[in-house]
């Protein structure tokens, strides 16, 4: 049960309360570097809330979040992104009326150096940067396989390509850790297989993947370690094999046998 020695993300006793509701209750685990880590659990288990606590959208009521040993608890979302955590959203949040290419170029915002002055006067520095940013954006669109939609508005992309565009936009921030919130929601089994292929490609780039997923089969096949949340509590953690046979997990998913 000991996690790999070198965690990229440590979640230590994180609790998030909304008034009287405890959405996440004293959850701790570590995401090992260079692997796929999955967070699963029934609806309302607090998975997305935990993601929001990691990326700075929520401030945890208690506990702390460490990225490679440095705290990011209470940081603003853009500061967390700068430190190397990128994410996608459960219900797709693209910039609808910007082209796919612009969505990915925006993703590079945090790695760009052009100041207001450069932007106003289109200095050579800004020009060169724009060219480099555009080239990299095209590479990323190719990487996720949607380069033919580069000029289209994000909202006009087919559903599956929108999910891929969100991943490309997140990759554009040059993350060390990529959080995917139900990246395969609404996908056909075939598309899910393709997506897991993409996850492996991302892993090949040296980026740790931390994902939320509902579909047990997808998770079992693709991830190295799994944590299970139920009603805000972590009820299990381990390899897919360990989790699959954990009676608490079976109960959470299937209910207590009558």
């Amino acid at each position, binding site marked *: 049960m000991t996690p790999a020695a070198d965690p990229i993300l440590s979640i230590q006793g994180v609790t998030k309360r909304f008034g009287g509701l405890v959405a996440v209750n004293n959850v701790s685990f570590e995401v090992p570097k260079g692997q796929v880590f999955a967070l699963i659990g029934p609806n309302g288990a607090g998975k997305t809330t935990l993601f929001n606590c990691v990326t700075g959208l929520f401030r945890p009521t208690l506990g702390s979040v460490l990225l490679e040993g440095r705290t990011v608890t209470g940081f603003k979302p*853009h500061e967390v992104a700068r430190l190397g955590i990128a994410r996608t959203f459960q219900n797709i949040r693209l910039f609808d009326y*910007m082209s796919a290419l*612009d969505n990915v170029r*925006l993703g590079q*915002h*945090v790695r760009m150096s052009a100041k207001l002055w450069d932007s*106003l*006067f289109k200095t050579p520095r800004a020009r060169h940067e*724009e060219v480099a940013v555009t080239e990299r954006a095209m590479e990323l669109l190719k990487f996720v396989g949607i380069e033919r939609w580069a000029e289209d508005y994000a909202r006009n992309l087919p559903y599956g390509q929108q999910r891929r565009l969100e991943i490309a936009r997140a990759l*554009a921030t040059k993350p060390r850790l990529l959080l995917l919130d139900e990246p395969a929601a609404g996908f056909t089994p075939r598309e899910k297989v393709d997506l897991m292929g993409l996850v492996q490609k991302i892993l090949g780039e040296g980026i740790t993947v931390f994902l939320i997923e509902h579909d047990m089969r997808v998770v079992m096949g693709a991830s190295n370690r799994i944590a299970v949340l139920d009603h805000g509590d972590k009820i299990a953690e381990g390899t897919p094999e360990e989790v699959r046979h954990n009676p608490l997990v079976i109960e959470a998913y299937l209910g207590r046998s009558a």
Partner: protein
Amino acid sequence: MSALLRGRLTGLGPRLRQRNFIVYAVLLAGALLWPSIADFITNGNATPLISQGADAGVYVLLAIGLNVVVGFAGLLDLGYAAFFAIGAYTAGILGSGQLGASPLHHEVHLPFWILLFLAMFFAASFGAILGAPTLRLRGDYLAIVTLGFGEIVPRIFRNMGFGSPLGNWTSGINGINALDRPSLPYWITGPWVNEPLKIVSNFNFGFDPMPFYVLMVILVIACVILVNNLQGSRMGRAWMAVREDEVAAAAMGVNTVTTKLLAFGIGAAFSGFAGAYYGTKLSLVGPDAFSFVVSVTVLVMVVLGGMGNIPGVIVGAILIYYVLFSFLGNLPDYLSSLATQVGLGWLNEPNYAHNWPGLANEVSLLPFLIFGLILVAIMLLRPQGLLPSRTRAEELRKGVSQEAVSDARST
């Protein structure tokens, strides 16, 4: 690949870029030829028309600036005239004898060229001061706060006159008059102002609208270039991202607070710029020139011209300026002569027994009704604006096609 990339750098579709290029070319030609056209129309008495051209330029500047705030960053600012006032009063207080009457007892006469930038700086600073606490608000709430600010600022200037406990800084309701005239070390005159071609040294603008008009054309061109640069830049993309989805933008590393603050500040800077020019050209800065109506007029120009698209906004500003300040004023005369020509001349005769003051008088009582009807007509014919950005065009196309789908389903 590089040609492809260059095309993509602007973030506009090829058709839109082509259309914008044509509009810019027509606008530039129109601006350069306007003095000659005015001369031709009026048989040599072009001065009022050139002056109006320069005043229209003020509104073009305002509209370009508000477009950054509303069109790019999606922040509804209903107090835009406040920054216009701050710019104008900066020029007024620091560029006239006003401070001699203040507790300072010492007149300050800064050159107009410095005042232009100082006004810009002050307006942008007030934009930042107002923005810092309020830009955390969203949508309607921001509109309400800016609306309040737009009412407060002219009122402060009005109350800082004679008898104010702080002393007379603004001459109150009378306003500041006799602003210093701008001057330049050299100027060129030529046949376009019916004079021989020569270089004049120690040139003073005086009250001749021609140099003001030339200055305005230069200012507008410079501002259009700068805002165009911004639109396709790192900053411009961040504004659009904040407009589209603030949470996602923040998660992608955009500092949403500073991004919005910058949009607000740059918009305010344009307004301050325009204000300093306006006050100096008129040589009068009074609190009544910066009412809520000005904010709304500029907003109408932006929306009607095509929110987010710079040439559209310019065309909208010129059109609305023409309607408000020329067409509506002349409409009673137009209509009464039209009535005579089509044989309805009896309409021009007042008939007090039936409460009819005559056509011209009747129409002159209803300018804002007619203005409203014109706006409604334009928005019915072109809801996306005269020259919309790609975004606006697409949004409305979506609306129409969805309506069509739901219509088809319901039948």
